[in-house]
């Protein structure tokens, strides 16, 4: 993983900070993969939650 910059010196100019993501994985495909993982987890949680709920009603 790691961070995309070792120093912020080059990312600051007369106009201020450069307009770009400052999160871990910015500028790479990491954001997309985290979104996929989060989406899959949400769907899995709903499926498990529903299975548990139906069990309660039996």
């Amino acid at each position, binding site marked *: 993983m790691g961070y995309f910059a070792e120093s912020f010196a080059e990312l600051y100019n007369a106009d*201020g900070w450069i307009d*770009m993501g*400052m999160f871990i994985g910015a*500028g790479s495909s990491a*954001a997309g993969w985290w979104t996929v993982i*989060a989406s899959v987890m949400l769907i899995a949680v*709903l499926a498990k939650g529903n299975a548990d*709920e139906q069990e309660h*009603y039996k």
Partner: protein
Amino acid sequence: MEDQILALTAELAAVKSAAQVTNTMFAEAYYYLTIPLMVLIHAGFLLYEMGATRVKNVLSSGTKNLLAFAFTIVTFYLFGWWFYWALPTFPYDLASGAGYMEISGIEYASAIALPWGDSAQYMGPNMADHASGVFWGAFALFAATTASIASGALIERIQTVGFVICAIVLGSFAWVVAAAWGWHADGWLVTEFGFHDFGAAGLVHAVAGFFALGILINLGPRVGKFNADGSANHIAGHNMPLTVTGLMLIIVGFFGFLMACIILPGEGWSWYADQGTTIYGTPMTLSALAFNVCLAASGGIIGAWIITKDPFWMMSGCLAGIISVASGLDIYFGSTVIVIAMVAGMILKPCADWLEGFGIDDAVGCVTVHGTIGLFGVVMLGVLGSGAPGLGAFAPEDTVAISLFGQIVGAIVMFLLGFVPGYIVSWLVHKAGMLRIPDAVQIKGLDAVKVPAQAYPESMVSPNSDS
């Protein structure tokens, strides 16, 4: 002399730069603070809903309400925000291209509102972006509000996950489409019909209220609500003070909600350098809100009191008073607001009773307070505000003005955007066996069956619970 001019020029540039920094930080803080204020709406709905529930179901209602908040916000991040920017011109432009202001369309939305690819830089921490996060946050809370609105109507017999699925469709799709069409300077309801809904009476309240109605039809009433002859029984909640206090908290949150509907000046995304506006670029001030929201809340309470004498309906009237004038909070005079809000408070309970006559068990009057009064407010603006310009000074000359016809068209669209998705998604959930809690479980009490915690000490049990 030349040196002095150069020095003064440099000083002026420094002052302008410092002023811009102050403006930017103020704008960011302004919208950021609307978010916790709107969380108070959810604190209010949580108390309101749990108070309106019987003891045997109180934690189950709380669980459902909390999940509506959480799932709506998460899914609004994943795809709801994209719909808002992508759909303003659709279906007038089937390709969903950019509108006149060029801040809409699929291409634009994909550049700023998807949590992957290049647009991800505007969906997370960004070194230079002081706007995207706070705007997204405010809209996410609007989305969660729609889900919380619908939640109260369905208490004590809807399954948790089935409800969450409905809440996601409402909060991250149905109301978002309404906002794209009627709450965006490129929205076709605005550009083609002059639709005006400053405070979201139609696109938040009416959509959520009628979405709830669509669900209620498939869900059916609580066990014991109706007798064999069709007459209705009153099912009292376990804590009226909790409910009434919750409603007052919702009102507090409304101030944040409506504050977030103002576009501040002086930023790259502002309509003007020196004046605040509505989302349509028309004139708006916080002072206008201060006059009209306070008066609307009071008018609604007074109107409901004279009809019902019941604090529950008085606080519902407070909510209805604000909703009834929300569309035109920017252009109504204070005394006009008092009249409209009082009328809204007066018609509230008769409208709720009328709906109950059709066998609809709306446990908290949600369909009436938000749906019926929301549409009443949208149409009233058409009656009283016809001729007011629909967009600000930047708009093309042939911009459509506010009209009764345009507001009625908007009201019909809002009704359909709520009711149709609500009915369809709840029908599908019902077919999957995930909508209605079995009657035997309702009679026993939901908390005893599916919540591993107790709301109150063991000695305090519901008189109509088997548990």
